[in-house]
Every structure is written in C-alpha cells, then in structure tokens.
C-alpha cells in the first residue's frame, strides 16, 4: 500500500490536515502528551459506550500519525481498544516509529489512548 516513503509521508501529511481537531478548551497542558519532540494534545470522550478521540499537534506528520490512530480507535468500545491487535502498525510501515526512543512519540500516543480506554471502561 505504501511502497515509497514519499507517498507514505505525503499521505500522513494529508491525513494530518484532516484530523478531528481538539476543542480549544482542551488544548492545554493537561491534555498534552509527553515524549514528543512536537506538542500533541489528545482528548477522549465516551458516547453511547464508545470512545471518540480528538487531537492536535504543531507538527503535521505527528498530527497525521495521531489521526491514523484515531481512525483505528475512535468509535470503539474501551474494551475493544484495550484488546486491540497492534500488528497493523507493522503492516503499514510505521514499525520504525514504534521504538520508544523515537522522538515522534507514537508510543506515548498509543499509551495515552490505552489510558483513556482504561479510565473510561466502567
């Protein structure tokens, strides 16, 4: 699907522009995810037993990555999110971003989404 890195990043950049943007009231330090070289804010709310995420970042690639995660996880139940098989990240070529030493914070974003799911599961 993403043969060439240019296509892959071009797609992430395009996705970054479509990300459901976090409400201004949540765009503060409380919703900031640590561990990223760029700043990322993530908010989650529960509607009819399903979680809906919104986010923002000052870096567009980072925003594309978080939107990709949002596309996968938004609208799922907390239980489904917690039980999710994360191997899809390898398949779409984001494996290199999964190392905890990467400065884009994909790991931190995933962790924060899991924490929201854990907190909202009851």
């Amino acid at each position, binding site marked *: 699907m993403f043969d060439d*890195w*240019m296509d892959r*990043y071009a797609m992430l*950049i395009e996705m970054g522009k479509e990300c459901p943007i976090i409400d201004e009231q949540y765009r503060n330090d409380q919703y900031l995810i640590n561990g990223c070289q*760029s700043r990322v804010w993530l908010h989650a709310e529960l509607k009819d037993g399903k979680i809906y995420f919104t986010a923002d970042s000052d870096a567009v*690639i980072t925003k594309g990555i978080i939107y990709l995660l949002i596309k996968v996880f938004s609208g799922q139940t907390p239980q489904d999110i917690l039980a999710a098989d994360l191997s899809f990240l390898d398949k779409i070529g984001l494996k290199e971003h999964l190392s905890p030493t990467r400065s*884009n914070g994909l790991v931190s974003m995933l962790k924060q989404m899991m924490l929201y799911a854990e907190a909202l599961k009851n």
Partner: protein
Amino acid sequence: MDINEIRKQFPVLDQQVYGKPLVYLDNAATTQKPLCVIERERDYYLHENCNIHRGVHYLSQMATEAYEHARQTVARFINAKETHEIVFTRGTTESLNLLATTLGVESGKWKVENSPLSTFHFPLKVLITAMEHHSNLVPWQQMVQRCGGQLLVAPMDDNGVLDLQAYEDLLKQGPQIVAMAHVSNTLGTVNPVKEMIRLAHQYGAIAVVDGAQSMAHLPIDVQDLDCDFFVFSGHKMYAPMGIGGLYGKTEWLEKMPPYQFGGEMVDTVSFERTTFNKLPFKFEAGTPNVGAALGLETAIQFLENLDRKEVEEHENLLVKTAVEKLSAIEGMRFIGQAPERSGLVSFIIDGIHPYDLGTIIDKMGVAVRTGHHCAEPVMTRFGIPGTVRASFALYNTLEEVDVLVKAVTRAANMLR
C-alpha cells in the same frame, strides 16, 4: 586540502541510508572519527591495555606514559602553561559540573574559609549568557540555588549577538564567576571571549569558557585568552566519546577541593583522614578512560597535520554557501545571524515545524538535528519551538550543501 582524501579516513561517511548517500550534518552533536583515531584506541586494547599509575610492571608503565603523553599533547594544543593544568574528564558537561561543585561549595553551604572564592563578597552570583547550552547553565543554576545566590544572564540581540554593554553592566553587580560559550551550539555565534574575559577580570570575576563547539573549528590559546578555566569534549573534535578536558590555571586548581574521591586521587589514606594527590591527579578519581585519552591525542595530531587556517576557511565557506542557498527558500528564517560565526546554520521555515522538516530530509539521507538543541531558553528568546540545525565538519563538501538545500526545498514543498 584534499577533501576526498580526508573523507577516505572517515569510513562511516561512506554509506547509504534509506538507499541514499549519507550526508552527515550533525557534527555539532558529535563528529565522526578518522581511522587513525579508531585504530589508536583499538591498538591500545590490542597491545597496551593496562590500569595506569602505580603499576610496577611493564605494561602499566607503558600505559601510564602514554596517558601522560596524551595530557602533554592536550596542554600543547591549547597552549596551557603547565601540563598539570589539564584534567581529563568525560567531557564538557562533567568539566562544568566539576567546577560548579568545587568552586567553593561544600555540603550545600558556602565554606568561605576554604573557598577559592573566599576573597569575594557574598552572596554568590554567577553570570552566564543567554545563548548557553544547558550544560553551561544548569550546573551554575543549581549551584546558586544551593547557596541562595543568583544567576545573572547577559542578553543577546535578534541576530544572536551578545550585548556587550549589558554584559559589562551585569559585571558591575559583582558576579564571582562568569561562564560563557566560546561558540553557541544553537546559533553558531562566536563570542568575543577574549574581551569578555578581560572585562570579567577587570570586575574581579573568574572566567570559564565552554569550548565544546570551538575546539574543532578555531585555534585555542588559553594563555592568550587568559581564561581561568576552559572546558571541552573530545567527541566533538574527532576523538572518541567519553573523554574531554578541563583546563584550569594552577592557582585555582590548587585551591579547589577534589570533586570525586577514591583511586588515584589520594596521597595517603587512614580511617581517620585522607590527604590528596597533587595536580592533576587530585581531580581524577577512579580508573580513567585511557584508550579514549590516547584517541584524543591522535585526533589532535590529525588536526595538527592539517592546515588549520585552511580548515577554518573551508568550514566558513560551507556555512556561507548554505546560508546563501537556503535563503532562496520561501519563508526561510535563520536563527543566529551574527557576523562572527562558526560551524553551523540554524533555521526554521514559516508554518513548518522543525520536526516535520527533519523527518522528511532524513529520508533523503540528510542527517541534521531538530529541536531545542539543549538550549531551551534560546528557543524561548526567539519564540520558536525549535530549529533545524545543519552543522559542519572539515570533511563536509559543497556538494553536500547542495543536497541539503535540495532536500529542504523538496520537504518544504511537501509540507506546505
């Protein structure tokens, strides 16, 4: 100077990343090592490895001699008056921590009678500049916080040039210590350290120069500078990691208490008391990194075998060319435009996050650094989240500058 011949001595440069030739422009973080340095350290472990000092056997004596010879080479390279004025450390950060710990502070309180600073008026004030790396900021900040002192910061202008008048005005507030970057790691500014040291002395302060970013690029003469201390890292000047140095004037080093304890730094030890070894061993507790010190000596010889003036001109041409060609990119904003600069170019592009730019050009084989470069207050000063920094070494070429410019142009078009 034949760059192609020089590049052959840096095997790491000859590789592809993501299928593209590597263009290594992160030299301010660490330089690559020439074969002679790698071989020197390897040779040490192959034939000479031994713990130094006090061993009566052959190998130990040879290793001790080699290590002390390396110290002489460093002393000569920066024109120290005495060889014992060179203390080997792990690098700039450790050297600065040594100073911020031993310049008169004991057990969190000023112990005035033992302090090399005892002639000064208290409370403690340390003056730094607004362009310091965290390593020349945090140790001093923590030091003044421990003893209820004050950190003074000399401002710079929008071009990243230090405000010398403001610096002198702050000196009138009576700081005991002044610590300054020789070359800014973020802006590339070359500070007028000789004049700054002269002024510091005029107002009765000790002058510490952070040479982390200058050693590889500029000739250093500590006697001519008349600095009280000069600190540097080996790995930023073609030597191995884990070795660096602290130069200090004998009069200060003699008065300072030891930094760490144990090993070679003692003279006599009983359960009741310990007396300490003479300089420079007083400051070298534990087994030193002998192999890296020998690598550092070889790196110095490598530099000395080149025409340093020619190296400087070549590196300045790389910076100048990069600035000229990058200027053509829409929205380009250089962070740091001092007339006197060395080694690097730092920039941002309007509307583009440095992280995005760095990520894309990495895929084109170009290694630069993005972020705050361990100088967060500099980013705050310019109101930006970070910069993209391309930093050069003597093995970089004008062709590589062109690759950088093309990569940045292409990435900017993708990201806009």
